[in-house]
């Protein structure tokens, strides 16, 4: 039996057959298909990082070695992180100690700011009189660069470490006050009406309605505060000295060890990123499906 072959064999291909992208071709391969979402998530950031490394290498080449490239920085970092917790006197300690000291100061200043700022924010949000009373002072002090408070801290505490903690405190307290207060003001009237109809006690209103309703705003404040605090600590430690990432950067500048400065930049970035992500995760947990 002879079947007439279609004469149109050499006609152009149907239009639908667009050039297939490599990812789509992968997706069509059955055993590779589950990997596709992973690839989609991983490929762009990896490409971005590679581009960054390339640019860095290029700049370092052009600077004729005065800016170290990725390779020598990596080698230096491996050496540095091989023994992160050595101690050779107060001015020469491992990178681990420097990170921990900086984190400790941020934690102290930030924690105290939370202890003061969050209750204060609650009161400002709840009582209009207090809000109007504190508004001029807050508006005046908030735009001041946190480092401008450093001399005051040195004057009062007569020591470097409490002074940097003080700077962290003052820089992270504003976002916490303002966001908590905004959160309390944004509690929907409906929830408060429920409280009124049920005649809930002040304490119950606070724990069952105000606190959970304000939590997402409060955590936004905390996130902003931790971001600022981490920005500020490096600068504050550069000025005060001691042990800490900021001091270490300055010390390595004096030693002209540029690799270490670059490493410090990455470490500061990485720790900041981790802090931020931890708080984003926490905020998501606390939002109860509300829009935030």
């Amino acid at each position, binding site marked *: 039996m002879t079947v007439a072959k279609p004469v149109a064999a050499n006609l152009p291909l149907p239009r639908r057959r667009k050039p297939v992208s490599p990812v789509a071709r992968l997706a069509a391969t059955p055993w590779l298909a589950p990997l596709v979402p992973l690839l989609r998530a991983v490929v762009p950031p990896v490409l971005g990082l590679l581009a960054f490394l390339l640019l860095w290498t290029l700049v370092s080449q052009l600077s004729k070695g005065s800016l170290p490239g990725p390779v020598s920085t990596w080698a230096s970092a491996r050496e540095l992180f091989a023994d992160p917790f050595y101690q050779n006197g107060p001015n020469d300690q491992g990178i681990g100690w420097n990170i921990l000291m900086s984190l400790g100061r941020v934690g102290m200043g930030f924690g105290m700011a939370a202890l003061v700022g969050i209750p204060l924010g609650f009161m400002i949000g709840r009582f209009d009189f207090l809000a109007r009373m504190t508004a001029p002072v807050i508006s005046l002090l908030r735009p001041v660069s946190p480092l401008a408070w450093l001399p005051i801290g040195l004057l009062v505490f007569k020591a470097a470490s409490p002074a940097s903690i003080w700077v962290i405190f003052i820089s992270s307290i504003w976002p916490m006050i303002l966001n908590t207060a905004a959160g309390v003001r944004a509690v*929907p009237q*409906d*929830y408060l*009406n*429920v409280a*009124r*109809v*049920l*005649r*809930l006690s002040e304490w*119950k209103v606070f724990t*069952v*309605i105000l606190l*959970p*309703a304000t939590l997402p705003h409060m955590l936004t404040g905390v996130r902003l505060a931790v971001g600022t605090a981490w920005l500020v600590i490096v600068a504050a430690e550069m000025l005060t000295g001691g042990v800490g990432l900021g001091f270490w950067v300055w010390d390595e500048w004096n030693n002209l060890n540029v690799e270490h400065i670059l490493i410090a930049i990455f470490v500061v970035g990485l720790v900041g990123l981790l802090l931020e992500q931890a708080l984003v995760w926490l905020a998501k947990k606390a939002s*109860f*499906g*509300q829009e935030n």
Partner: protein
Amino acid sequence: MDRFVELENIRKHFDTKKGRFVALQDVNLTIRQGEFVSLIGHSGCGKSTVLNIIAGLLDPSDGIALCNGREIDGPGPERAVVFQNHSLLPWLSCYGNILLAVERVFGARESKLQLAARTEEALALVGLQHARDKHPHEISGGMKQRVGIARALAMEPKVLLMDEPFGALDALTRANLQDEMVKIVDQTGSTVVMVTHDVDEAVLLSDRIVMMTNGPAATVGEILPVNLPRPRNRLALASDPAYHACRSAVLDFLYQKHKREVA
């Protein structure tokens, strides 16, 4: 009790930036125990204001508001409110939302076990046992409103106040909930005041329909008794001339006598 809720010469004004706005004037209304009364009127006629005054969420500027022979002084659980937008607390489960109300009303007198039983019972009344541990954002609008109703009913209020309880729902869900409401009201014999702008809903559920004139200075225009036998059935009513007579009376009031100019 014939005069269970009593409003006498109620007047309510709001002081706004543009001067005083008189929302209600000379509102007189008495509601019997076990009666289902609807407040109907065009939007902005102050029907929600009347409800909020009975709830105690608003104080009248003038006049007397009584419930069970006592002056209404602030809100309280004996006048439970079903809010238009359900007002469930998003961080509590359906069970938790109802339990919060139950605890507040009965917590001083009853054991934890009894409180839990009341909460379960309220969930069962609106058919939501299966959504017991869901949070409000995980359930549909109709289910949320049912939890709101269950929360209000669980408080065993003297008066149940509903502010356009089905207004935010789609037509089919609304009809379902209205039918459920018919059953619940027959079952519990609660005194109910409901604000609505849905004529069919008002006729289906009410013993009397209070029609309000347009604001400002709105007042009670007419009161229509709905003498349809209970239990009521949506389908049977559709061919009942008495039902249609009630319907046209309300429509006539709203669209003939007090037609609202299109803004």
